[in-house]
């Protein structure tokens, strides 16, 4: 790396950003050479998205220097970044749904002919520019957003998860287009798919805990190096923890409590297949946006599946409303306590709510019976209820315990916990792990999604890994250390072939998308 600063197309140095007490970026740096495709990597919370937001002007850095083509430039808005030669394409397309494509181009002052050129390069030549954006499928909108950015010929093109949930044929074209950028322009490429990084990127910058921990030349076999950098040195040591979750469940002998077969929501979630048994904690691990939110939505009755079957105790079920799931003894515990609790009401009322609020309990609430149940639950969960008159005065951890306690009090058999320890102190976290284990020992089936990989060994018996909307791996918690989970979450199997199955699974969408891309033939015109 003998290049001086002026040879670099973009150089960000010493970039820091704190939100309150949280340090999102700590003297991070990124340098991009002209003509290269540069990957930006990092686990959840490593600071990737903050760095992207700073580069594109969505947030301002606390400190730091950003130099584009030798000139210092800090962008204060996306429009500003655009003038500085930096255009980004996000996972959620920045296309205005109520405008047609032509007006969307006008809004960003995009020349139409280059846009058309890139559209046909990307395989969308049949697109009708007068169709409203909201009538086009998401995959087409992504392509439109990308073609629009390419047509602007930016110095630096920033692609944030552009290939996520794109059908295989389109993904290929996108990757080709990314590589076609001239020797003068660069691309910053963010993707969870290491296989794509290896295919198109020249170098990769890896972030961990808000710091730049390494810059890697991408060659065959550098994926493992990248993952190691993302994990840091502590990774190996963590694997030595003895798992507290010891599976005593004989799974072959019983009917699964919940059994999902090829569940799909039609968008992100493609094929979720797994069994959850009574008496176990089944972990779910996935990178952001792999379909886990949708999976929990389907299981808890908040949304209806587009395909696949769901069985509870061996019976096929379809749910119209979360109340249907609750009636079947399946409840959802969200990461955000505010979604579940009545913050101004007492611990007692909050715990009693699900069992007392049913329509069939019309009339007087039996306060004594309610009181017994609640006291029992408070004792079981060791809730510190001194500030019990208003739930909002409890600590986050105790609030989360209340959300669990209310379902314990009403005798629920299955819990879907979605990142229940988010933002909770370490002591209470441990209490929640113990609580989940105790509940499982008492026969409850628990599905636990967590964004903290080490929780898997602390609380789970087994774990399934979701990638690209599919369950791609299942392992016992004993073997699921952070390194193994992170590799699996990137769909990286040691010694295995390329993740063809993901590509193959996407291909099913091909016809549907292509059919919609040209837009259905226009409605018959009124006859004069």
């Amino acid at each position, binding site marked *: 790396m003998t290049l001086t600063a002026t040879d670099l197309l973009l150089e960000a140095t010493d970039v820091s950003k704190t939100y309150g007490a949280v340090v999102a970026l700590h003297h991070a740096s990124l340098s991009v050479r002209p003509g290269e495709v540069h990957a930006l990597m990092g686990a959840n919370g490593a600071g990737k998205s903050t760095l992207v937001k700073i580069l*594109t002007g*969505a947030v301002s850095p606390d400190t730091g220097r950003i130099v584009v083509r030798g000139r210092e430039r800090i962008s204060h*808005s*996306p*429009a500003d970044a*655009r003038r500085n030669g930096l255009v*980004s394409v*996000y996972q*959620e*397309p*920045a*296309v*205005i*749904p*109520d*405008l*047609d494509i*032509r*007006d*969307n181009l*006008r*809004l*960003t002052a995009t020349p*139409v002919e280059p846009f*058309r050129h890139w559209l046909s390069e990307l395989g969308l030549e049949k697109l*009708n*520019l*007068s*169709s*409203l954006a909201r009538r086009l499928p998401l995959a087409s909108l992504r392509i439109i957003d990308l073609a629009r950015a390419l047509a602007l010929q930016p110095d630096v093109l920033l692609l944030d998860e552009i290939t996520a949930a794109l059908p295989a044929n389109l993904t290929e074209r996108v990757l080709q287009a990314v590589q076609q950028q001239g020797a003068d322009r660069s691309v910053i490429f963010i993707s969870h798919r290491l296989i794509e990084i290896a295919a198109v990127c020249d170098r990769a910058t890896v972030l961990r805990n808000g710091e730049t921990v390494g810059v890697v030349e991408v060659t065959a076999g550098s994926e493992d190096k990248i993952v190691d950098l993302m994990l840091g040195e502590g990774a190996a040591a963590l694997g030595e923890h003895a798992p507290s979750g010891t599976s005593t469940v004989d799974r072959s002998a019983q009917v699964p409590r919940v059994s999902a077969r090829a569940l799909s929501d039609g968008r992100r979630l493609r094929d979720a297949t797994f069994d959850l048994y009574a008496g176990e904690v089944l972990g779910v691990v996935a990178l952001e946006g792999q379909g886990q939110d949708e999976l929990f939505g389907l299981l808890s009755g908040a949304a209806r599946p587009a395909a696949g079957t769901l069985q509870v105790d061996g019976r096929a079920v379809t749910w119209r409303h979360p109340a249907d799931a609750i009636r079947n003894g399946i409840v959802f515990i969200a990461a955000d306590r505010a979604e579940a609790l009545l913050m101004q009401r007492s611990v007692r009322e909050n715990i009693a709510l699900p069992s007392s609020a049913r329509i069939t309990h019309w009339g007087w609430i039996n306060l004594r019976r309610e009181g017994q149940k609640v006291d029992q639950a408070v004792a079981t969960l060791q809730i510190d209820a001194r500030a019990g008159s208003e739930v909002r005065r409890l600590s986050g951890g105790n609030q989360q315990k209340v959300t669990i306690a209310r379902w314990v009090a009403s005798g629920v058999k299955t819990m879907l916990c979605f990142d229940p320890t988010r933002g909770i102190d370490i002591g209470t976290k441990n209490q929640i792990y113990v609580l989940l284990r105790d509940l499982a020992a008492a026969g409850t089936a628990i599905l636990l999604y967590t964004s903290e990989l080490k929780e898997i060994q602390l609380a789970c018996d087994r774990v399934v890994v979701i990638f690209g909307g599919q369950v791609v791996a299942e392992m016992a918690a004993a073997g699921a250390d952070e390194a193994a989970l992170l590799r699996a979450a990137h769909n990286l199997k040691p010694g295995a072939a390329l993740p063809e199955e993901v590509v193959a699974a996407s291909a099913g969408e091909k016809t549907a998308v292509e059919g919609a891309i040209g837009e259905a033939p*226009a*409605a*018959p*015109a*009124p006859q004069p």
Partner: protein
Amino acid sequence: MSAPAASIGRPRAGVADSLGTWARNNAWTLGLLGFLVVLLLFTKYVNHNYSLVSLANTATAVVPLALAAVAQAVVVISGGIDLSISSQMALTSCVAATMMAAYPGEVTAVAIVIGVLMLGMVLGAVNGALVVMTRVPDIIVTLATYFVWAGFALLVRAAPGGSAAKWLKDLVVGSLGIDVVPKAAVVLVVIVAVIWIPLSRSRLGLSLYAVGSNRLAAFRSGVAVNRTKFMSYVITGLLAAFAGLSLTASTGIGTPVPEPTYVLISIGAVVLGGVSLAGGTGGVFGPLVAVVVLQLIRDDMTFMQVDSNYGLVAQGFILIGVLMAGSLIQMRRSRA
């Protein structure tokens, strides 16, 4: 909006194709026009004396309301709402009538009209600045300024009165040449055309739709979101001032007490006219048609001697019924 230009880049696409696209993008307004035709036929059926001249009278009667609805449409398209429109109308109307009584003269009246229009833009600018800078929800801000503007109107004049210049009255009273073309409706169309057509083709107009449709996507597309919101209130204030002037012109005086139904009917007309309250869709043509529809329904009730209280109930149900039918059709289309 850009539908007429649809075929330029695509020589292969026929006229029928682009007409079809236009029809699809404006299906709601076309449906509403159809409803208006049915309503006119019904009116003729219950009232055999109803003629084109009566229709012209209806059109004259709705001018202030139509301007209020267009004003409301602009701010709703950009994702906001303005509850203070009726008191903006009262204040501008009072200022105009009082000034014209104090400084009579046909030429000074021109200066007064220009000043009142600027006053409207200032009122809108205050609304916009408060919404953008304080981050208090727009519904609260404009509810508060509703009372502020109404208070100012009473300070300007405690009781109805004042006068209007002759040319101003002549502008909205009577017809143009033949009886069936009311002057007021022509003035309305000219005002709306002069403001709306250039606006809808400008970058600001596009930004109004963009911000109303999806704020984040608009921000990421490089739209100055706050400036756009601010400008939407300024334009609404300008149109509300036109509405206030039309009140002064048609009554010859200024009335300091705002007519609260103007706000509610303007919102009803906007929604009935195909502008989503969530923002981003519709235009001003639909709300204009909707105002005529609502007025006709009221006229028919009066003619059929329906008790006016029942009339209100019926109007409410008709509004809900039409909106329900419309959303049902849209839901089925989006599923298909």
